């Protein structure tokens, strides 16, 4: 039986969402900091596209590539701002809270998917 790829993708997506939540927290905490530029992660689709096909290790000397959602590859880019303020700060609280809501619902979707798949697998194994 082939390993189920879905758990891997959902947990990677969750990792990406957690990193995004931490960036959103930084943006909101610095909402009144002079000259602070809001940061965001690359969309997950881009991260997924940039991921090469997984290579198997056939010899003990082979090294595994970095996971795509590690902090090293989490490059920040300034999101376009909604309003321009005198202090040069580009954080919009409403926008950040909207992003946080998106992250929250995507995270809950992922965990529900994992849960229902796990239930499915349990049912299958019980049937044997």
């Amino acid at each position, binding site marked *: 039986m082939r390993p189920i790829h879905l758990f891997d993708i959902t947990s990677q997506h*969750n*990792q990406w*969402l*957690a*990193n995004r*939540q*931490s*960036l*959103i*927290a*930084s943006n*909101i*905490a*610095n*909402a*009144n*900091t*002079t000259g*602070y530029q809001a*940061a965001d992660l690359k969309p997950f689709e881009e991260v997924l596209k940039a991921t090469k096909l997984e290579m198997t290790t056939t010899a003990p000397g082979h090294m595994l590539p970095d996971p795509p959602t*590690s*902090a090293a590859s989490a490059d920040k880019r300034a999101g376009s701002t909604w309003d321009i303020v005198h202090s040069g700060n580009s954080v919009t*609280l409403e926008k*950040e*809270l909207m992003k*946080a*809501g998106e*992250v*929250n619902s995507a*995270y*809950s979707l992922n*965990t529900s998917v*994992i*849960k229902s798949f*796990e*239930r499915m697998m349990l049912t299958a194994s019980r049937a044997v």
Partner: protein
Amino acid sequence: MFDPLAASVRVAGSGLQAQSHRVRIVSENLANYDSTGNTPGANPYTRKTISFGAELDRALGATVVRIKRIDFDHTPYPVQRDPSHPAADANGMVKHPNVNMLTELADIREANRSYEANLQVVKQARAMIGMTIDLMRSS
């Protein structure tokens, strides 16, 4: 690497701390709205200002907010004629604090909004941690 969700809670905590400090400064300004000097020609209370700075917390791997400096507002003091006041100078003019109540109230309102936003982040991060823990719960 630190857990990003726990890091968000810490970052939001630094935001809460910064905003509550801001409320403290505003309340100091408002409380001293009428604090004049006691000797002739003495300077009254000077309005305080607070500014924040972004700082990378290396242990956390996230950008937190810190109080950069607490400064004094250098706008000139408004003067009022009141010869009977102990702080009146030779011309009978008394210097009053350069605190503007409208500015302070706008500032405290903004601090309030930012505080709410930070609290919301803490709530959501905790909800996300809770969802992950619920995965282990047998339904």
